[in-house]
């Protein structure tokens, strides 16, 4: 479904501030696989996800989605194949649009937008309200509220719904619960697992919690300084616990994980 081949990215190339963010990443993800990504700060996780989404262009290598070589496609061209939830709750929704308008914008993703009224009639509104009610946050009664008036957790849940509203190839979640309080984070994470399971979505999820990286999904990769260090799945992964990940990290890099970089529990 998704293939990343020998991907290299350097920010500010040719300057003293040059940062090699990806240094030869190879990754193949099968349809329906849920991959969690973990790694220290600056390991290149966000860069990898942005490269898949199209916001970051590769210096070398290729990206293939569902057989299409999308390496040179712009973000908006890939958007019909990709659902994305950003880390920052403000980033994934538009404050100045109502909840309903945000959803309507997501509903026309990938199609040619016309001069038709964006908000449908009562039937479409009821469908949206149905979708919103499963979030269990009371948003179905706030279709006309500006997204800017929602809490962080509500906005993130809305982003998740917007990302998964239409059929797509890959769902990208980049620490999408990191900016939320623990309660909201747990709710949004549970929702993500529920929706991805239900729609059998191919998913790439970055998390800073080692625990979550093993509890969710069916494959875990660990990144360090622009490379994939560790890739576990199947029965081997079932036997893993957080200390095993820490051990492996130490064995391959020769350094300890500092606990402000990753939540160990």
């Amino acid at each position, binding site marked *: 479904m998704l293939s990343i081949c020998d991907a290299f990215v350097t920010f500010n190339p040719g300057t003293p501030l040059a940062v090699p963010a990806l240094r030869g990443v190879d990754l193949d993800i099968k349809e329906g696989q849920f991959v969690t990504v973990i790694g220290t700060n600056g390991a290149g996780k966000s860069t990898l996800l942005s490269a898949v989404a199209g916001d970051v262009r590769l210096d070398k290598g290729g990206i293939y989605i569902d057989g299409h070589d999308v390496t040179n496609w712009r973000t*908006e061209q890939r*958007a019909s194949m990709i659902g994305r939830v950003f880390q920052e709750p403000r980033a994934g*929704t538009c404050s100045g*649009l109502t909840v309903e308008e945000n959803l309507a*914008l*997501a509903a026309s993703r990938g199609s040619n*937008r016309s001069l038709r009224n*964006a908000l449908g009639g009562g039937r479409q509104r009821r469908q949206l309200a149905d979708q919103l009610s499963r979030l269990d946050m009371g948003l179905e009664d706030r279709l006309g509220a500006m997204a800017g008036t929602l809490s962080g957790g509500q906005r993130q849940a809305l982003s998740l719904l*917007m990302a998964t509203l239409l059929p797509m190839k890959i769902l990208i979640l980049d620490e999408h619960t990191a900016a939320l309080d623990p309660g909201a984070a747990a709710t949004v994470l549970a929702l993500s697992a529920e929706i991805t399971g239900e729609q059998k979505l191919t998913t790439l999820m970055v998390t800073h919690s080692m625990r979550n990286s093993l509890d969710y999904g069916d494959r875990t990769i660990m990144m360090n300084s622009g490379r994939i260090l560790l890739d576990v799945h199947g029965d081997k992964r079932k036997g893993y616990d957080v200390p095993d990940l820490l051990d492996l990290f130490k064995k391959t890099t020769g350094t300890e994980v500092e606990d402000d970089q990753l939540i160990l529990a």
Partner: protein
Amino acid sequence: MSALAVAGAIEAGLLFSLVALGVYLSFRVLNFPDLTVDGSFPLGAAATAVAIIHGVDPFLATAIGTFAGCCAGFVSAYLNVRFRILNLLAGILTMVALYSINLRVMGRPNISLYGEDTIFTAFEGLIDLGIWTTSAILLVIAVVMKLLVDWFLGTQVGLALRASGENPAMARAQSVSNGRMTLVGMTVSNALVGLAGSLFAQSQGVADVSLGIGTIVTGLAALIIGETLLGSVKVFWATLGCLIGALLYRLFIAAALSAGFLGIQAQDLNLVTAVVVAIAVILSQARRNSRFKLWPKMRSLLMDTQPQKG
């Protein structure tokens, strides 16, 4: 203030409400500080005036003036989108170029439309409200344009445009091409300004190459007054604010002129407008920051207490 002066102020207010709608689209919706306006306003006037003195039907001439505005907006947007020229600079370049273009279009610094057929003379047979006839026609046009902008911003393209202006990264992720939205939004915005210039020439009976100076600031003044009175969050109220803001502003100017307030004369208009906009912006920023900065500071000055930490 004489009735004639009031009628004149209302006409000017309604004309500038169209500019304010255009400025709302560029500055607010699209987040594109567009200075093309000072050139596209006289361009609309010039194109329409030239068409009319060549015997073109006034309605077609109005369409020509509007289309000329479209082109001006498109050029600024294209400079910004295609060649990555800073949006402010792109607008300034187009505006400066348009000064020469407007002279070329007219062939001389001004054209009088006195005694020519205009869309206003076309309507005079239908409605006769004396000195209020022009105002009535302009009111209908302004309201129709306001409703058209409301409708447009509620379409699928309109939503994409609003998202693109507010949150380009999110818009991209929803398959919106931000570049295309800039082109569309700027074209529509300057169409409104071109229309305003066209109607200005026809209602005031003259197109002049220096007409445009200060258009953008007047449009901004109207926009900010409207936002202050009616809020800026919902499109319906923001566009209504453009109409009301422009009307109030021109009435205020007319009153100040006729009362000889502070000795203000017609040539001081642009100075007054600039000062009003500056004060309005400073006040709105102060209000936004007050909880964090200004108000505790002022309170501590006024009440001789320490600003609260927190």
